[in-house]
């Protein structure tokens, strides 16, 4: 089962430590987290299901945000990091 790790800002809404998930895709992993932590809803994805513009999801260290996104399969994955991207001003 992969473990999810949120960055410090997102921990306000979700798990504070590493969290095991059973999901088979990034979309289902977010569903699973949102079911456990309702305040995460709409923080990682918007209402259309798309990853928010400045959210990055890494599966085993690879950034999938701009490639397979929420459809990324998690079979065999060990770690997922959800971070906010470097942006601002």
């Amino acid at each position, binding site marked *: 089962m992969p473990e999810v790790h949120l960055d410090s800002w997102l921990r306000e809404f979700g798990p504070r430590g590493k969290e095991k998930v059973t999901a088979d895709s990034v*979309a289902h992993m977010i569903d699973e987290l949102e079911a456990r932590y309702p305040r995460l809803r709409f923080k990682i*994805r*918007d*209402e259309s*299901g798309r990853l*928010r513009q*400045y*959210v990055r999801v890494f599966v085993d260290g690879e950034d999938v945000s701009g490639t397979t996104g929420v*459809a990324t399969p998690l079979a065999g994955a060990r770690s997922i990091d959800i971070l906010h991207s470097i*942006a601002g001003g």
Partner: protein
Amino acid sequence: MAKDRKLRILVGSRKGTYIIEGDARRKQWKVGPVAHAGSEIYHVVADPRHPGDLYAAVNNTFWGPAIQRSRDWGKTWKEIATPLTPNAKARKAEVAAAVGSPPKWAINNLWHIEPGLPSESNTLYLGADPHLLFRTTDLGASWEPIESINNHPDKKNWSPGAGGACLHTILLDPRDARRLYVGLSAVGTFRSEDGGETWKPTNKGVEAPFLPNKFPETGQCVHDVAADTADPDTFYRQDHGGMYVSHDRMETWKRIGKPLGDDFGFTVASPPSSPGKAYFVRLGGMARTTDEGYFQVHEWNDKTRKWRKLVSPKAFLGHFGVHREGIATDSLDPPGIYVGTTTGQLFISPDAGKTWQLIPFDFPGIHSVSIANPMAK
């Protein structure tokens, strides 16, 4: 419970929410700590029906929009329900069908929160981008999309303004809870006589200088509208195409800004204690700042149909920008006028524009200013 006699200025900025406390004398001010640090706050408003309740439209670059409520005059805040768009109900199926197909619209930013009338003590309205209106009847525990606007048959022809596809103005007729007005950029104003079931465009007489047809039914870029509290049929409008007044529930508009030359701007307010007066901040249409080189507020007197400048040109030099929620008035007599700028100055006049002071604090760029008035004795 003792009556709270404080007057509070509620500031929404590019980097958080500020509450500035004073009293009815409007001489001494205390700037409180920032809340929602780092988020863009498009609007903060007090709910006069529930003293102490404040609502903030919090737009975070990373985590998206959220509505936050305080029940203690801004000392603490808590996120309340975010409205679901119609698409969100089908989100799981959409995600399962997976991505690759372009996503449909979601809420981009929250723009304006309007408490309902005193007779509807748990009702609030919310305006959002893209061109969305929501209503709650349980103080924000749940939100109902107003589909007659959100899926308006003409919506495919609606364009965003420079700030986005914002529904930024919501006005309620104090005599009749079923009569509502909304303003959207760059679409114009609409009136509903049946509690939001149906809407009529109300832009007759308003010029759209950026369109081939200069006087279309919709397509005007309304920037802000204020109601005259003494005469709920009268409205003052700052449009992309100038400054206007309507005396017939927005059926027709007359341009009043031409004597000012370039009558561009974003914001207008009308004070409850001075019927027939409206305050505009004229900006240069190209620079979108006070391009004459100094801070200025223009007063429109609807009885004499004359303009008056309220600030000495020598008082505050500079090119200031003011956003659509950037001006507010209080309910005292004479009215206080409060103007926040895009460069973070907060100007205050405690006496209807006779004298002005600058709060000695540089805020982040200010999006919105509103007032929580002192409770009645």
